[in-house]
Structures are given as structure tokens and as C-alpha cells.
């Protein structure tokens, strides 16, 4: 599979004859990154599959009008963040209807996750992350797992670097306390 830069992919996509080819290349390039980012937030594989498909469909529909005032990668991540947080918000509403707490629901999803084979300590880490507020989860995952710089995260979320550093620092403290307490 040939490797194209983001700009080349955008150019190729805007060519009507090569649109589908460009889109397939784009999916191949970013599917794993996007999938694992979403999966860490929504936990369940089937839910992650749904959200990832929605993300790429949105990308397909809007890539023509992508203004290129940010990097393609930043734009993709922004869509992924919005879709994941929307999904969590809708799930929480489902919790209120069934009179269960969102935390309990997420814990249950973690326990029932059949596509997970982490160690005990990794499970505790995962539980601790899930207990964080949604946006703090996003910041933590981007920094800890995806190794994005604060500047990149700031571009994606539209939050200041200082606020992100504070958020990450607090998240790390909470997670450390939670994992060592258990």
C-alpha cells in the first residue's frame, strides 16, 4: 500500500475519479489510531465499531470542505473526540432512564468486555481512567497512550496548554491513588 502524506490524500480525495481510493487510503492510515482512541473511551468493541464508522462517514462527507487551517490529523481527532463524547453523553442518559449510575454502567462494560486480555493491574488502571470525567479521560488518553504533545492536544480540543497540563496532572494523581488503593 503506497504511503501518502495528508496533503496528498486530500488532493486525491478532491479528484472525483479517485475519491474512493483516497478515502480507503485514509481509512487504512488512521483506522487503528482512531479505533483505539475511541475504544479506550467507550470500552465496548461493538460500540467502538459503531462510533468509528460514524467518524469515518463524517470525514467522508466533510473532507471536501476541509479548510486546511489545521492539520488533517488534528481535524480527524477532533471529530473522534466529539463523536466519542456524544456517545458517552447518550449512554449516560440511558443510565438515568434505567436508574443506574454511569460509573456502574462503565464498570459493567469493562467486566463484560470480551476483547480484553490485560493483566490485573492493567484492569485497575482501566477502571481508574473510566472513573475520570469524560474530558479529563480524553486528555489523559491522548497524552498517556497516544503520546500527543500539549500543543497538539490544545489544537484538537481548543483548550489552553496550561489547562491541559493541570488536567493531566490531576488525572495522573487520581489514577495513581485509585490503582494503589485497590
Amino acid at each position, binding site marked *: 500500500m503506497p504511503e501518502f502524506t495528508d496533503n496528498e490524500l486530500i488532493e486525491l480525495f478532491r479528484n472525483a475519479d479517485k475519491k474512493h481510493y483516497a478515502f480507503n487510503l485514509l*481509512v487504512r492510515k488512521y483506522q487503528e489510531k482512531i479505533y483505539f482512541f475511541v475504544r479506550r473511551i467507550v470500552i465496548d468493541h461493538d460500540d467502538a465499531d459503531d462510533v468509528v464508522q460514524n467518524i469515518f462517514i463524517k470525514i467522508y462527507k466533510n473532507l471536501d470542505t476541509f479548510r486546511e487551517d489545521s492539520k488533517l490529523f488534528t481535524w480527524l481527532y477532533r471529530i473522534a473526540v466529539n463523536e466519542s463524547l456524544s456517545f458517552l453523553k*447518550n449512554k449516560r442518559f*440511558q443510565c438515568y432512564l434505567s436508574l443506574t449510575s454511569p460509573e456502574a454502567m462503565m464498570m459493567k462494560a469493562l467486566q463484560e468486555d470480551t476483547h*480484553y486480555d*490485560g493483566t490485573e*493491574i492493567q484492569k485497575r*488502571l482501566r477502571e481508574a481512567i473510566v472513573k475520570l470525567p469524560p474530558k479529563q479521560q480524553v486528555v489523559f488518553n491522548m497524552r498517556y497512550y497516544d503520546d500527543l504533545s500539549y500543543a497538539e492536544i490544545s489544537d484538537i480540543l481548543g483548550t489552553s496548554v496550561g489547562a491541559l*497540563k*493541570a488536567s*493531566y496532572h490531576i488525572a495522573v494523581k487520581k489514577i495513581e491513588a485509585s490503582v494503589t488503593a485497590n
Partner: protein
Amino acid sequence: MKINQSIQNQCPENESLPPMLSKLRQGADGINTPDGYFDSLGSRIVDGKANRKGASFLSVAFPSVSKPLLWVPTLAAVVAVVLLVFVLPEKKAAEIPAVDEWTEIRMAFDASYAEEVLLSESHTVDREIENIDLSYIQSATYTGKNEPTRDEISEYLKDQEIEPDILNEH
């Protein structure tokens, strides 16, 4: 602001993580996918993008929405109950004679029924009028005690500058 500044000072770009978290960061985190998932994801997205329903609010908040076998029979039962309770009894009420108090009150406020009643009453009045003796009406005159005299009438007509000869016409 001071607290944030303090945190920022402790969090340079390459902040050091607690040893446990630093160790867990290396290597896999235990999350895996079904076999061949990523190989088929692209084609599934392309196939599904035309008819994608998406993880809409409804389908996530109410998972049974995506399972019509669950909600279609329920909806059908609700519609049937509504029809039985509200629609059919109204039709039946039109055939039953107004014998009970509530039916009479309801029909009294029913404009079409009121119109029918008035029409039937006017027919009754018409029939009575045809049958009665009208001769006393034709010959009836006003016999009030304060009837004006001819002179008073003439005086009045002069005031109004009307010719008194008009009296002779009647």
C-alpha cells in the same frame, strides 16, 4: 491562578510519571480486536455509508429501537387500545338514544344536534300555525287607551310639514 501556575511548573512538557504508570505505559494495554477487524473496516464503512443509521441518540439511549421485533408489537397494542377506548365508543354513542343524563347534556352542547332540535321545533310551530284560526289576527286593531285624535295627528303632520291630506289615504 496560583494553583494552576504551580501545577504548570510541575508539569513540563516531559513530565515524569509515577513509576507504576510509567511501566504500564510500555507495551500493550490488553485491548484487542476480533480477527481481521481492521482488514474489513474500510469496506464496511464504504458499504454502510449510504444507509448508515448511526449511533443516534435514540438508538443509544433506547437500544430496543434498533430491534423492531420488540417495539412494533408493543406499538400495535397501544394503537389498538387507543382505538378501542376512544374511537369506537364515540361512534357507538351516536346510535344510542339520548336516554341518560350525560348523553343529554353532551347532545345539548352538540351544535349539530341543537340545530336538529330547532329545526324539528320549527316544523312543529309551522304545523300549529297552519292549523289555527287566523281570522282574529286579520281583524285585530290596536285598542290602546292613549290613541291620538285626528286633530292631534293633523297638528303633528303640520309640524313635520307633511300634508294632512295623507290621512285621507288611510
